[in-house]
């Protein structure tokens, strides 16, 4: 009987208004590869952040027992000192430093504040050989690809004397060959006695490497499947991931669907920085009046990039394809063009891309269509206050007054201000990107009601969402997107969590 290296008991973590983890238990045996699977937002990453000390001790409830002792990590440094290293999905490398410098960043070789560069680069080269990366440790990070960067991250973890390696979506941005290489490397480390936890959406990879699979759903552990004992087929895992009861969380709507209002044909977008990398590849989609069309897919599938590239070319380079609005082909060269053609894009990142947090609700509401409240470029502030109040009432935004700064509102109310801003712009077609991200259940329901109201007025809504239940509950039709391509189009009747997931999984890695 192998030793239990890590045990997480009754972990509960609260975020304002959300129970991110609810009595989660996880047991990891020494020398195994343990996979964590679950939908976006199920709590996998949160759990790993608790383990690595990003959420410090006291910030959560429950116990972490590592190698038989109770651990109270306050920072990442504490967990790393014990040999627990986490590699995040977003790589934490400094592009303009060399591989060697990056590997020992925060863990410098040498003493008394003086760095021993000879030792640094020698050791780096040695570790690079261990992970099978044939690059000089003097190469700059920006000059190597993502796959190699992932290997550098692993070498960096090895430099910290890692005992328990946590990989969060390590293959999300890798192609098939690089992914395979990485997985084989994990198996090799396992043979040498290292313990790994891997978080992944790609179930084929999970079944390939994992000894045990723990399924997390809605912040709770559902089950742990063991290789050789349980059935580890993809269907079995998916059932664990999505098997939840759908209650009445979505307001009812009688769809009144009209003619096509917007159509996108053969839409291809290249990455703004990396040459030759297609972010969207030959996308075809359309939306009708009075229709809610969902775009489902995993993070990084290219959905946001698609929406932003349509919205006046706000993302990407070398955009090609045809955009038809109300039967006429249009070329949108700027956001202003897009707004003039009655198109609106409500961003997923309301704080980063959507709202001016240092301005008032009033100023945010009118920002995208100020000509409606001005004459000859001069603002009619009284009218502005009036319309801001109208939208505040209409969307039932909770605030002291429309003069309140948006930065001081809760997430749900900020989302309402963002919606108000785009409703004020009088669009016919709204692209809503993750409209309910990070807001509580009550506010979600209100947002759904607003969406229903919009389509009832004959507008078209494209809803990008990573939450499958939301897609199923709200959309009349759903496109499934993966790796920049549309990999499925499902009617309301055809849509189910299983059918969407299998569209994604079956397409994974096919076209790279």
């Amino acid at each position, binding site marked *: 009987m192998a030793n239990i290296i890590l045990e997480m008991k009754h972990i509960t973590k609260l975020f304002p208004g959300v129970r991110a983890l609810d009595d989660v238990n996880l047991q990891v045996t020494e020398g195994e590869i343990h996979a964590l699977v679950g939908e976006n937002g199920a709590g996998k990453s949160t759990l790993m952040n608790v383990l690595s000390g990003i959420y410090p001790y006291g910030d959560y409830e429950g116990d972490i027992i590592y190698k038989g002792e109770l651990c109270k990590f306050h920072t990442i440094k504490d967990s790393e000192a014990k040999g627990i290293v986490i590699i995040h999905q977003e790589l934490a490398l400094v592009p303009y430093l060399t591989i060697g410098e990056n590997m020992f960043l925060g863990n410098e070789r040498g003493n008394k504040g003086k760095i021993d560069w000879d030792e640094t680069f020698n050791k780096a080269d040695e570790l690079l050989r261990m992970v099978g990366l044939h690059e000089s440790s003097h190469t700059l990070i920006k000059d190597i690809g993502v796959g190699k960067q992932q290997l550098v991250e692993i070498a960096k973890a090895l430099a910290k004397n890692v005992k328990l390696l946590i990989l969060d979506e390590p293959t999300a941005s890798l192609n098939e060959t690089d992914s395979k290489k990485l997985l084989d490397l994990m198996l090799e480390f396992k043979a040498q006695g290292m313990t790994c936890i891997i978080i992944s959406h790609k179930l084929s990879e999970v079944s390939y490497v994992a000894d045990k699979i723990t399924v997390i759903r809605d912040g709770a552990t559902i089950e742990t499947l063991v290789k050789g004992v349980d059935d580890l087929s993809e269907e079995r895992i998916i059932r664990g991931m999505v098997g939840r009861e759908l209650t009445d969380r979505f307001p009812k709507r009688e769809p009144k669907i009209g003619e096509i209002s917007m159509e996108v044909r053969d839409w291809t977008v290249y990455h703004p920085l990396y040459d030759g990398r297609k972010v969207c590849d030959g996308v075809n989609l359309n939306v009708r009046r009075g229709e809610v069309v969902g775009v489902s897919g995993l993070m990084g599938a290219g959905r946001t990039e698609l929406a932003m590239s349509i919205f006046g070319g706000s993302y990407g380079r070398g955009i090609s394809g045809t955009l038809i609005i109300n039967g006429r082909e249009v070329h949108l060269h700027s956001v202003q063009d897009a707004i003039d053609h009655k198109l609106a894009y409500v961003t997923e990142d309301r704080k980063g*891309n959507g709202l001016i947090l240092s301005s008032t609700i009033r100023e945010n509401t009118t*920002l995208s269509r100020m000509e409606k409240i001005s004459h000859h470029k001069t603002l009619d*502030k009284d009218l502005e206050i009036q319309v801001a109040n109208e939208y505040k009432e209409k969307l039932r935004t909770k605030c002291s007054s429309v003069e309140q700064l948006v930065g001081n509102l809760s997430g749900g109310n900020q989302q309402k201000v963002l919606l108000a801003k785009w409703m004020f712009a009088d669009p016919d077609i709204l692209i809503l990107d993750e409209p309910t991200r990070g807001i509580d259940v009550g506010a979600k329901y209100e947002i759904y009601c607003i969406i229903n109201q919009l389509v009832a007025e004959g507008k078209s809504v494209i809803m990008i969402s990573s939450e499958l239940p939301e897609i199923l509950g709200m959309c009349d039709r759903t496109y499934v997107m993966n790796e920049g391509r549309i990999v499925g189009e499902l009617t309301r009747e055809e849509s189910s969590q299983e059918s969407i997931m299998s569209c994604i999984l079956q397409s994974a890695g096919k076209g790279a």
Partner: protein
Amino acid sequence: MTKTKEVLKKNTMLIALAVVMVLFQVLISIAGKGSLFAPANITNLILQNSYVVILAVGMLMCILTGGNIDLSVGSIVALVGAIAGVMIVSNKMNVYLTILVCLVLGTLIGAWQGFWIAYVRIPAFIVTLAGMMLWRGVALIVLNGLTISPFPQEYLRYFSSFLPGDASNKGLILSVTLIVGAVLCAVYLAVQLIGRAKKLRKGYDVESQGMLWGRIVLICAVVMALSYLLGSNKGIPVVLILLGVIILAYSYYTQNTVPGRYLYAMGGNEKAAKLSGINTNRTLFFAYTNMGFLSAVAALVCIARFNSAAPSAGTNYEMDAIGACYIGGASAYGGTGTVSGAVIGAIFMGVLNNGMSILGIDANWQKVVKGIVLLAAVVFDVVSKKHSSKS
């Protein structure tokens, strides 16, 4: 209670300014060195700080766009002043033509810098640091390192004279300034009451009667007091009228126009502004072009005040203007700040300078005090914001 608190919080800098003025008045009286509010000193205070106020207004536009500053304004003041000197004094050219050429030149310099900053996206700090050296160098070349003076009366009367012009008749001066003050008060009263009536008619919220009249009485009292003090000295400085026009125009621009709103939106969150259809490049370009224009205006005021065009003119003016904006509550990250705040900041710095000079405090120590005040003002701003976002 919360209403009072809100009013206090909104006017922190104004209150601080009043406190500092009273403090200096007390110190100066105790030291027996006259009075801060002596008519001659008030006139002096306005003349001394006119250029800082003009530059601070322009600098605020730049800071609003995202904490960008313009380091080149002092050098532009020197260069534009030098051109004016060469044209008017050395070549006896037409005064109006010279003024026009100077304003166009300043605008073009601003546009040149704005182009690199807004469209090529070279950091403003670097472009204007380069401009700081470049324009200073050109000013030195134009003047050949020498100072040109004096300027003809024909030019000076537009920038450094007083209204009414007849300086011998004390009674006339006082009555004219008091009449002008009273007219201004009446106009203010009318604007406030008409605005309120309009709001009431449309059924919008209005402030309470007490607040309204409190504000009107306070502002009218300050205007009348200032009129009296100016009238007891030489009359209304022409520069004060110029300042009034600039402050009003830019306040209106930032608060009541669409492009003014763009400045705040861009500084608050440039990505969001772009995704709202705002051409942020154009906004940024405007801010720096405008800064060049106002630098030229400041240059015209400066040469009149010193009655000379010197290659060293305008040294450190950019720092005074930047300091005034930050003391006046502009955020170092952009997106917040007002013209009136920047003006109050400029007056605040002016009062500090003036008060300490009267008290005979060593110039070196004056710098120490100003430095500490600037840091304290910004720290106060940042800390109070952190506090309010937590609650």
